[in-house]
């Protein structure tokens, strides 16, 4: 019998706005209007400023650890905007390097700072905002996205779940199980992988033997794309279309966004110790802010004056955010027991009343409790 091909595949790479700020007009058709590009440029700039301030807060001892988003704003901007345009009905299941996607869909900016300052209340996401708490264990949240998508399908809400994760997370079993579930159960999930080439100090080529990360989505039977993750047009268009596919066909979609982590993994890391500065320098030229500004300037929609105004606006906005985050009173000591259960069990009531476990004697009277 002759051999026959039972499966063959290709991965498309989508770029609409190149690093020179040149737009592919035919691909850009029916995507972002000029005023929307201005809006997203402003949002990315504000996010960048927020990022720099967060970094300085950490360096000056006012915040624990912070993972910079620097250089990766365009993917979350385009994806977040696609979600926003649908009325923010879709659920976002994030990790920690897509602040802008959250901000665009109702996450108060001070909550993210509060979280990294080390306060659980940063994850008290306001009701009506369809965003899960930031997931710090790598790759656990795509499964929650599958669960939320399952709930959307069951309740016929017409919404999807969008989950963000990095290239490193694609080595975790959870991510693969989430992809398998979403595809096998036909769930409306958009998997958005930010491939920034580094999982702390582990480079992308050590992470997987696959030529692309996108092809992993194909293996699970879902449409999969690789996009220029520093291009807001590509990100917006691909996520917009993916959401349509997810919701209308109950078909998950996988997107690999090629970007680069211009900062360290977190403030606890020093990437200079393991990265070639020449390569980092090449990526600095591909910065999404530079190309978007170039594009706007080429269309006479941006000027130094507008830039100065934007920078002043960003400073004022972020100053207010920092003030609000730092202005929240530290929790009372007795609050340590709150929230471990919906209703505090007897043993924890006992411990809270006494601030003691039984072995430090039962029920000593204490004056330290604020409640």
């Amino acid at each position, binding site marked *: 019998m002759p051999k026959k091909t039972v499966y063959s595949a290709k991965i498309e790479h989508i770029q609409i706005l190149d690093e020179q700020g040149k737009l592919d007009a035919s691909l850009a058709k029916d995507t972002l209007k000029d005023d929307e590009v201005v809006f997203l440029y402003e949002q990315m700039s504000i996010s960048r400023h927020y990022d720099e301030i967060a970094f300085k807060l950490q360096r000056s001892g006012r915040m624990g650890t912070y993972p910079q988003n620097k250089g990766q704003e365009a993917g979350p901007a385009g994806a977040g905007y696609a979600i926003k345009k649908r009325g923010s009905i879709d659920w976002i299941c994030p990790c920690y390097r897509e602040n802008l996607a959250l901000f665009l869909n109702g996450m108060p900016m001070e909550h993210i700072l509060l979280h990294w300052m080390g306060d659980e209340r940063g*994850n008290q*996401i306001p009701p009506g905002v369809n965003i899960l708490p930031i997931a710090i*264990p790598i790759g656990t949240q795509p*499964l929650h996205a*599958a669960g939320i998508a399952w709930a959307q399908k069951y309740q016929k809400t017409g919404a999807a779940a969008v989950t963000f994760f990095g290239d490193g997370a694609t080595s975790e079993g959870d991510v693969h199980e989430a992809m398998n579930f979403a595809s*096998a159960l036909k769930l409306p999930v958009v998997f958005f992988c930010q491939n920034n080439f580094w999982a702390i100090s582990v480079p992308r080529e050590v992470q997987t033997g696959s030529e692309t990360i996108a092809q992993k989505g194909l293996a699970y039977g879902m449409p999969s794309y690789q996009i220029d993750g520093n291009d807001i047009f590509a990100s917006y268009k691909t996520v917009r279309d993916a959401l349509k596919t997810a919701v209308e066909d109950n078909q998950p979609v996988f997107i690999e966004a090629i970007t680069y982590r211009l900062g360290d993994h977190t403030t606890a890391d020093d990437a200079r110790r393991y990265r070639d500065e020449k390569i980092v320098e090449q990526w600095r030229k591909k910065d999404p802010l530079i190309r978007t500004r170039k594009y706007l300037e080429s269309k006479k929609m941006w000027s130094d004056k507008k830039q100065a105004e934007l920078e002043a606006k960003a400073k004022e906005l972020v100053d207010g955010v920092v003030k609000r985050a730092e202005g929240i009173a530290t929790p009372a000591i007795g609050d340590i027991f709150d929230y471990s259960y919906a209703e505090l069990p007897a043993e924890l009531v006992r411990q809270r009343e006494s601030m003691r476990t039984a072995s430090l004697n039962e029920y000593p009277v204490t004056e330290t409790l604020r409640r």
Partner: protein
Amino acid sequence: MATRVIQFREALREAMTEEMRRDPRIFLMGEEVAQYNGAYKVSQGMLEEFGPQRIIDAPISENGFAGLGIGAAMYGLRPIIEFMSWSFSLVAADQILNNAAKMLYMSGGQWGCPIVFRGNNGAGGQLGSTHSWCVEALYSNVPGLKIAIPSCPYDAKGLLKTAIRDPDPVFFLESERMLGDKGEVPEEEYTIPFGQAILRREGSDVTLVSFGRPVNFCMEAADELLQDGIACDVLDMRTVRPLDIDAIIASVKKTNRLVVVDQSWPFASVATEVITQTIERAFDHLDHEPVRVNTDDVPTPYAKNLEMEYLPNKGKIIAAVKSVVGTTV
């Protein structure tokens, strides 16, 4: 109350079925729960009643359906996730311990996780060491979750209904060896509160504390001990988290002697915790050092005779009770 005699597995099924009828947010997901009617026939007929939208066959991916359930629970549904065996929950540890148990706390009270994980726990009868896990010691160390462990059909139904309605994640530990056990279960609706032990036998000589399957061995032992004139308080804890330590202390203050029977390994087990708390709270009431009846401190043996010897049983319990009362009776 009108009662009838049904199997443990039927009691579990009734609990899930009744709750699913009253709350459309509940769904059951697991390996073989739908088409195959459950690997142990606990969910028999449920696919027929509730359809594939609510009785869902999952790929063989425990971490996957545990995590999916957690996402659905955070959204507001009420998932019941069946592990064919709690032994298989180990691959889902990050989801069930690091996510389900901590989500409410880590989100400052905003994101609860009302989910039930249930399945067979403990030695099922020559399943070998990897498939015979007793998880109560391991998992009860983690705050944020609740652990229910019924010993009879009545409790299985009442506790499972409570578990399903509970706003926190509940680990519900069944036993393959008890699924065919029969017992009286009321026709009428009832639930059993968490954190309240039940006194199965009353006696003033020794307090016998247990939970899950070994409660039944304690009852056999207590019956036999009575013939020797030794009367035991047999406390069935029903839940180990929360633990009804007050009931244990009250009994120990009466009997002044404590034996704890626990089907998991002795080191840092629930038995250890019971004894520690008893010493903390009722040291002066003890007339004899407390004694544990656990398994041997080895992986569960595969060979039939070794497995039987490894587990707690009536004979070991009788010997333990006699050792704590022996010097004074």
